[in-house]
């Protein structure tokens, strides 16, 4: 039986600035099952974000295979990758990355637009799910950091993606808002979604069932919560 997410000897090199290419990931391999919550952990520069970008089809591996839901992402064209991202992946970023000129609900509907068609009722439902039903007409600049991250979560979940990738989702939040965001991720996990969180925060990582530790681009260890 195939795994939902499978990495096989994945290496990623970036062009260096004189001393040769930089090895961001060095022959990484692991699998993730559907509905799992996995945290990728490690210090800065360990390759966490690079790994997330490969899994989110925002970048391609230099060598090795990345398979998501049975699809080898290296075989997809640029447009197919875009389609794959729209249908399969929901992103949550540390810096929220909301479109500044769109309201909360428009930011959510934008993800619907690139996925298929917009449905305002569904977008409102997603905002209600993150507790921002009353803030739908607010611009990102009128929302707090925690609220912006919740809009980003609503945007990530509105298309019902199979995989949610979160890059330091609590990195820019205070303790209270971090708790709200982690609670929402737990809720998404309880709904059966596969969640992969990249973090160097022990507390954020502790919510995952499995924690994969990276060091210098290599797999250092894996801890599974019983």
């Amino acid at each position, binding site marked *: 039986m195939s795994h939902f997410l499978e990495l096989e000897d994945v290496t990623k090199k970036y062009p260096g600035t004189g001393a040769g290419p930089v090895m961001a990931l060095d022959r990484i391999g692991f699998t993730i099952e559907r509905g799992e919550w996995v945290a990728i952990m490690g210090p800065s520069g360990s390759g966490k974000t690079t790994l997330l970008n490969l899994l989110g089809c*925002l970048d391609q591996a230099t060598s090795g295979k990345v398979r998501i839901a049975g699809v080898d992402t290296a075989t997809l064209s640029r447009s197919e990758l875009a389609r794959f991202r729209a249908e399969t992946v929901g992103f949550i970023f540390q810096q929220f990355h909301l479109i500044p000129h769109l309201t909360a609900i428009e930011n959510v509907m934008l993800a619907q637009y690139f996925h298929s068609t917009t449905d305002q009722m569904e977008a409102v439902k997603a905002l209600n799910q993150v507790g921002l039903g009353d803030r739908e007409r607010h611009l990102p600049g009128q929302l707090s950091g925690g609220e912006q991250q919740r809009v980003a979560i609503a945007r990530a979940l509105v298309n019902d993606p199979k995989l949610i990738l979160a890059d330091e989702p609590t990195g820019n939040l205070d303790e209270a808002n971090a708790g709200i965001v982690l609670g929402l991720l737990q809720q998404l996990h309880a709904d059966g979604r596969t969640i992969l969180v990249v973090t160097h925060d022990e507390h954020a990582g502790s919510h995952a069932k499995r924690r994969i530790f990276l060091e210098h681009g290599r797999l250092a260890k894996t801890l599974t919560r019983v």
Partner: protein
Amino acid sequence: MFWRYIASALRFRRRRLLVAFCALAVAATLATVLFSVYSDIERKMRHEFRGYGANLIVAPADGATTVPLEGVAEAERLGLVSAPFLYTPGRVNGENVVLAGVDFQRSGPLTSYWRVAGERIADDGECLAGVRAAAHLRLEPGSRVEVEGSPCVVRGIVTSGGPEDSQILLPLRRLAESRGIQGAASVIQARGDGQRLEELRDDLARALPETEVRLLRAVAETEAAVALKVKRTLFLLAALILGITVLCVANNFTALVLERKREIGLLKAIGAGERRIAALFVCEALMLALASALAGYGVGLGAAWWIGRSVFGPVGAVGVDFQALFPVALTTLAMAAIATSLPLARIWKIEAAAVLRGE
């Protein structure tokens, strides 16, 4: 969502887009002026060229010394401005002088280039004196002279730069009567549309077979050459300014794309392909261009009217062409599309992973 995105993006960056808006509005203004002036310049210049005299002349043929005055009516029937002139030697204050019989009413449009000190029209018992004749005979407006033994008051001194400067100009009817000439003149001068001149010459020649209808080629060709040069200069200047505007707008849009690279990265992350992102940016640019075209068109209409008045005077201002809106909008949109095409290539080069990391 597409249009909501574009409208909010334009609204959000309205100050940033002001430079591009102004540049495109200037281009639209220029295009409006150009289309208005360009379409009307020939008509206006033809009107101006009328002041430089006749471009057709009906002269006696085959040893005849006069042409029939019916030629004037024939010329007018063909839409020409025309006037008869009668030339004869005479004596003024005892000196030999060429006397010119002029139909002052009809000749007015053909002699507007004459500079006249005093009156331009002489009635019975009156005359005008060419500047050289006046100097020789010591005449000035108000002087009394004897023309062929009859008294005559000089009403004006004519400077034309031509043979008129040495002539004494009398009403045609009076000179013809004194010479016993009826229904004839030495020549008929005429002026017609520069573009149809050959055709008009042929028509007139057919109507007046006993005369020789000549084209004043130097005048006709100069008119055509000047009109062509003015049009070409206008076109090249406009092309230069529009080119500079495209560069300015392209620079502005490039800066905008770079400024919005995280937004582009985010759009890619949530599943937008490069073409769809490019479509958003192109539409933004075209919406901006459309607004600029409307603003520029309004200003341009006013500018065309003002330029017409300043250059050609209040009587014959360049006509305002309301039909110019479509080509103006098309030009402005094309400029925006060209200016956007270069920055658009950057959308394909932006690496979502890198820009979302903050690199």
